[in-house]
């Protein structure tokens, strides 16, 4: 997943904020594989994943004023937005009771609210961490990996995971907290 565009993610994003359609195309070229991979993992169906991917870029175009140019974390903003959108579609598809999808809902639940002190990440540097992350994930127990998977890719809440695993919600909660904490520790160690 390499591209020859010399512009940084933040530079492209700045152009997108000026409604430069070529910049949005560059962002699409750079990010569509990783975002599509994530979305496909969540919704599994190819057509649905492609539809969500294009919706994500429409949301970027529409909600670009919600992006924080002080922290400039393009990678995490796009990945989180894609995950939120895919899980939202998944939840609606399985018939979960959800509020109407309108602009306010999108701003509140789909567009990410990143920490004002978040460290900026760019796709290029993130892809270099693949091996370290895989190593860190392999360091988790099977149960930890499973709850993390159900939560992150399955979009399930504590009660749903508890029902699926037939264990109390409190246990799921602590398993998730320990798993995510361990992962953070291992990724930090790997750095």
């Amino acid at each position: 997943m390499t591209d020859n565009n010399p512009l940084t993610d933040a530079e492209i994003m700045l152009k997108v904020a000026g409604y430069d359609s070529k910049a949005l195309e560059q962002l699409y070229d750079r990010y569509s594989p990783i975002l599509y991979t994530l979305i496909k993992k969540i919704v599994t169906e190819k057509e649905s994943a492609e539809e969500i991917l294009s919706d994500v870029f429409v949301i970027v175009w529409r909600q670009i004023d919600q992006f924080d140019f002080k922290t400039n974390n393009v990678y995490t903003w796009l990945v989180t937005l894609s995950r939120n959108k895919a899980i939202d579609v998944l939840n609606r598809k399985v018939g979960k009771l959800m509020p109407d999808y309108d602009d306010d809902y999108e701003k509140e639940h789909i567009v990410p609210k990143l920490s004002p002190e978040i460290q900026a990440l760019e796709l290029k540097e993130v892809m270099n961490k693949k091996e370290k992350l895989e190593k860190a994930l392999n360091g988790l127990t099977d149960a930890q990996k499973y709850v993390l998977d159900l939560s992150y890719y399955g979009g399930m809440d504590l009660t749903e995971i508890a029902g699926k695993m037939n264990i109390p919600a409190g246990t799921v909660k602590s398993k998730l907290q320990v798993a995510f904490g361990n992962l953070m520790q291992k990724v930090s160690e790997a750095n």
Partner: protein
Amino acid sequence: MEKKKILDLIKLEVLRCLNDKDKANLESIKAEGNDFPWKELGDYQNLSALLPISLELKYPASDMKDKTAMKLYNIRELIKAKIDAKKALEAPEPPVEEISFPVENIQEVETAEQIEVEEKVLVEVEEGVQYSSNESMNNKDDSYRFVGKFKGKSEVENPFRKAVEIETKEPPKAVVDKELVEKIARDYIKSHLERELETLRSTINKNKILSFILFVVSLLLIIALFFIK
């Protein structure tokens, strides 16, 4: 609340697994603003976003870019409205005299401008028909090309881009609105008449071929008659 408990809530929030009670609790801690671990929240948000890189990469179909461009094209009115709203917020309050300007006059001016724009657009469409009947089908309508690809449409032709450029140059407001209205009307008419124009062009081509065939047949009949005599 001690930091460890806040961090535990942060982990669940990042994974979107907080129940309503804990969510409200965390929001109130954020609102208090006393030593909230914003950096740690950012670290966990970044960690969460890292997870997909462990997956095997998959690629969307190549025509998805076109479909995305089409969706973007369809929301151009909405984007224009956003830019206008932003511009209106930034613009200073109009003087009181302008507010008390008779409504009838405004409507007259608007109607006159509208007629002028519509006339221009109709002339352009007519010219477009003449032009396109002499040209190949592939290289005439820019708005069609924009729908086809992000890059198929130059930035100048991009309605969003055009709106932003106009905003940057800061010309008188009446000129800005007129140009935008012209552009939008032109795009609208082109996109709606495109199919009819294509039908018209193909009918003309068919008629040409038919005329040619009839001419050849007539010629052959005349020659045949000549030899028969």
